[in-house]
């Protein structure tokens, strides 16, 4: 295929597909814990880290990772203080992240570099960034497999999990770090403004078909890989921005699934009558 003759496109596919495997794994737990907006809060906070990195001459991805980890720990700390309104913690941290990113971006000399983090630039990632994606993907996949039953129980019922002996605090901490690192790496490739959609949309599609937790998880990964591969092809041939194309394809697919399910339910109800 002509598209794969280019080195930058091979790199884009490799990074995109690896991220498409790990982002829904994180997204599945985030959605089931009713914290779907956490991706947004972290990715917006990552922009503050990117700006700080560019100002201080540090690699912006490392800056984004540090900001994401701080934001994720902040969300977890506020969530514990006000457990009945846990979603408020996300709004507070997101506002702080946006505010800080807005102020710091005024001091960034290379605006184009900063803007590339807003919508991502998967076709322009360097060897170092690809290695980072590979490393993070391996670490997240391994941690997700090792903590499979703990994460399942915590997502389902954190209180019952604690009574059953699950070390909920430690597992939540590890998951928080994994989420933060994944978001910061994904911000460079699919874009800070888009990464949270990649967490939620494939899971939302999979939940329409999954007949068990395991099946829903597998379907989420399949949907994300499909959206990424199709999005990259479409972006290449139609000369579109890859990050946005991937997400829009996912949203379109979700709309079609919901419409199809609604129509199928209506037809089935009419037949029963």
């Amino acid at each position, binding site marked *: 295929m002509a598209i794969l003759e280019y080195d930058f496109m091979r790199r884009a596919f490799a990074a995109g597909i690896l991220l498409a495997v790990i982002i829904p794994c994180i997204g599945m737990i985030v959605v*089931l814990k009713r914290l779907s907006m956490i991706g947004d809060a972290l990715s917006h906070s990552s922009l503050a880290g990117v700006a700080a990195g560019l100002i201080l001459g540090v690699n912006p991805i490392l800056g984004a990772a540090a900001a994401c980890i701080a934001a994720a720990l902040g969300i977890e700390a506020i969530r514990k203080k006000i457990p009945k309104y846990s979603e408020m913690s996300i709004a507070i941290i997101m506002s702080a992240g946006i505010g800080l990113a807005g102020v710091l971006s005024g001091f960034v000399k290379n605006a184009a570099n900063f803007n590339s983090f807003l919508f991502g630039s998967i076709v322009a990632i360097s060897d170092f960034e690809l290695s980072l994606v590979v490393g993070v993907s391996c670490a997240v996949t391994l941690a997700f*497999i*090792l*903590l*499979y*039953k*703990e994460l*399942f*129980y915590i*997502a*389902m*019922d954190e*209180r*019952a*999990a604690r*009574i*059953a*002996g*699950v070390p909920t605090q430690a597992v939540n901490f590890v998951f928080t770090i994994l989420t933060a690192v994944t978001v910061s790496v994904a911000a460079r490739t699919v874009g800070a403004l888009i990464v949270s959609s990649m967490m939620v949309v494939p899971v939302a599609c999979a*939940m329409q078909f*999954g*007949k*068990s*937790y*395991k099946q*829903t998880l597998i379907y989420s990964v399949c949907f994300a890989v499909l959206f990424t591969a199709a999005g990259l092809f479409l972006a290449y041939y139609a000369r579109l921005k890859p990050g946005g194309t991937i997400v829009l394809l996912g949203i379109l697919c979700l709309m079609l699934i919901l419409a199809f399910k609604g129509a199928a339910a209506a037809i089935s109800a009419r037949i029963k009558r």
Partner: protein
Amino acid sequence: MSGIVRVDNLSFQYGDEPIFSQIGFSVYPGESVAVIGSNGAGKSTLLRLILGELTPLTGSVRLFGQEVRHFREWTKIGYLAQNGTQAVSGFPATAEEIVTANLYSRIGFRPFPKKEHREKARTALRQVGMEDYAKRIVGALSGGQQQRVMLARVLVSDPELLFLDEPTVGVDAETVMSLFDLLTRLNRENGLTVVMITHDLARASERMSRVLCLEDGTLVELDKAQIDKELTHKHKHPGV
């Protein structure tokens, strides 16, 4: 014989509002104890204190002879929370997956359950009459069926002591009857110790070995005459 639950001089308050003061009781192995009381009397708070989720103002709680703060043998304890089905009603998991989750400590370091664990989950689902629904998504089940699955999740780990917080709320009459039948059987045949918070005094007095009443900040054990008096009062004033 020492109590497997021992509560001594327990006091608790939310902010400046006292909930109860200097209460104490013990639960012995093989007993079935009902805790009744009006809404807001502090029944669920008492359970949270027993489970170590809240810190008392004064007094102590011992489980199996250990201070609850140092207690680590949680596999001996089963706990069915109030409105426990809310947590799973929209969750994309099968009844079997939900029940298997509570075999956490038995599965050990393995990330996934083995066949023997899944079979154990099936046995627990059979106990509550839900084996045929093992592969069904739990959100597609009725409220009563979901409550049975939650009970199977608690029973699967073979607890010695079972705490239930208003397990019959929002459940149909048939499920309530089968729940009491099952708990009576597990208590009498397997020696499972049961502590249940309930508003169903009639059934509790009929099926449980003791009834404790938490009211106005104090805890008292009701004898037969007091239970009859309460039931007559409830019969005359059903809203009270």
